[in-house]
């Protein structure tokens, strides 16, 4: 601990003194720049733990293979006809599953001390939340792209080509921006990342199955059909199908966007309030 301390052994006191002396406080960065910095943080996490993408892409790909080859013939007459029907829906499912992880990673942050550090900084206060959303969008795009690519490999050809696929992907990602605030609220309310994961999937899983992602609701009993038809996931899947087929369904697209905006309008303020007071 005296002057004889070798450099590799730990802190070099003289250098520490030097490091303290050399800084002047820079001007405070703007809100956008701060949010983008948090976005960068989110992307670094994806880079360091790419396995987290595996979790969210493997399940939908598994469903894609299972439903197409196991039930496809029975449901739609042939596997290729079923693939045409279900792929846009699986795109929706794949990306929406990913939004649960927004809540999980927020909760993980909270169990560590790092959020206290962020909250003690002189920064625009919603920046960490908005920024992590930017990072999350990378995950959404990757999850969606994987499904589309696997679908194409299995023989799916969107009538509207690349444009249609990109349009559908963009719509799902925008919808996910809205939905992710629901899981952020869960992430702030529940005790552990696991609890958020379980609660999140407990909600999103049945909602996905009680939609038109896998089956045409016309075949369902009355009350169930009615529910499936108003389920926002059905509407989003319909909108995606229409975009990929080159016959955009204005009503479904608008409804999806309105639902996303409504979710954000309700849950974003709740999220910021909870984040501030935790």
């Amino acid at each position, binding site marked *: 601990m005296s002057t004889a301390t070798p450099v590799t052994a730990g802190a070099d006191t003289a250098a520490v003194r030097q490091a303290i002396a050399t800084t002047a406080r820079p001007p405070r*960065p703007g809100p956008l720049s701060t949010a983008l910095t948090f976005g960068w943080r989110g992307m670094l996490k994806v880079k360091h733990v790419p396995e987290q993408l595996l979790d969210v892409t493997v399940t939908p790909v598994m469903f894609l293979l299972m439903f197409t080859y196991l039930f496809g013939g029975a449901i739609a007459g042939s596997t290729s006809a079923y693939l045409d029907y279900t792929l846009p829906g699986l795109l929706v499912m794949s990306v929406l599953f990913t939004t649960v992880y927004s809540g999980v990673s927020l909760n993980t942050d909270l169990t560590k001390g790092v959020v206290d*550090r962020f909250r003690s900084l002189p920064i625009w206060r919603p920046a960490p939340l908005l920024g992590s959303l930017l990072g999350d969008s990378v995950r959404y795009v990757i999850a969606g792209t994987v499904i589309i690519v696997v679908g194409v490999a299995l023989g799916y050809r969107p009538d509207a080509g690349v444009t249609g696929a990109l349009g559908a992907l963009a719509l799902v990602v925008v919808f996910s921006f809205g939905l992710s605030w629901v899981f952020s609220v869960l992430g702030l309310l529940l005790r552990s990342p696991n609890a958020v994961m379980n609660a999140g999937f407990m909600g999103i899983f049945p909602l996905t199955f009680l939609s038109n992602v896998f089956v045409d609701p016309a075949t369902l009993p009355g009350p169930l059909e009615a529910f499936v038809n108003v389920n926002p996931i059905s509407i989003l899947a319909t909108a995606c199908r229409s975009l990929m087929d080159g016959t955009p369904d204005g009503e479904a697209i608008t409804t999806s966007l309105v639902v996303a905006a409504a979710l954000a309008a309700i849950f974003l303020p709740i999220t910021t309030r909870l984040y501030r007071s935790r």
Partner: protein
Amino acid sequence: MTTHAPLAIEVTGLEKSFGDTHAVAGVDLAVPEGSIYGVLGPNGAGKTTVIRMLATLIPPDAGTARVLGHDIRTEGDAVRSLVSLTGQLASVDEELTGRENLILLGRLLGLSRSASRTRADELLEAFGISEAAARLVKHYSGGMRRRLDIAASIVVTPRLMFLDEPTTGLDPRSRGQVWEIARALQAGGTTILLCTQYLEEADQLADGIAVIDRGKVIAEGTPGQLKASVGTGGLKVRLLDPGQRGDAAGILERAVGAVVLDADPAALSVSSADASRAADGVSALARAGLGIAEFSLGQPSLDEVFLALTGHLAEERDATLEEQSS
């Protein structure tokens, strides 16, 4: 205290409850600028809660606090731009590398991309973490993580730094390094509010100490004053034969002062002794033919400080410790 420095922290009647727990039950503090001020207390005393309020993470229920002249309730933003927090849980991002952590903070504090990289490398070098710069923090040792944590707090030098139990769980060497860093920070003009459970740590670093228990300040003063109220050092003796402890207690009582029987059936300590009287006590034991396995003369422990300050707290704390371990 005789100092006339302006106050970095000025707290009166600070309170905070969580449900039925009065975590902070009326705390007053006056911390002179440029000092290291120790808040000393056992687990659950309310230290972290005080820091979280002063760093504007949670609002107080009652009381007023000014940090570097700014009211923590109404001028939170001004407070945040002058302080840094090194929390009890490492306040760094475990899923990023050490270098990324420092660059992230540089960017958030307004450094340009290149300036934040330069600053990160400079700090990594100064804190002896260059070699681990590209490794994820979750693979860091406790001491490295703590050094990174402190480095993260001085990416832009703060006027006031909160250090919450910076050496709990560290080995003695890492502990010494953290102390060196704290001294260097103070030498650079940063005021430090240091929360700790170790009297030795407060004694090593702090210019003033507040002893806090159950959300209240129960004693305040310089380390010297505090130790004088307890005794300059504690003599601890372990006997070869636990059966002789009663005799030994009698001899030490006469030669030195009030004796405390430890949980270890062969050990006893005298919490009020100066070195020469302690030596007399040990030789009195030897003359009486009692076999001594070991003895030491050390700083009073936090328990002894508590015993001296309150008389009764030590037992109750033992009771809670037993509850925890059962």
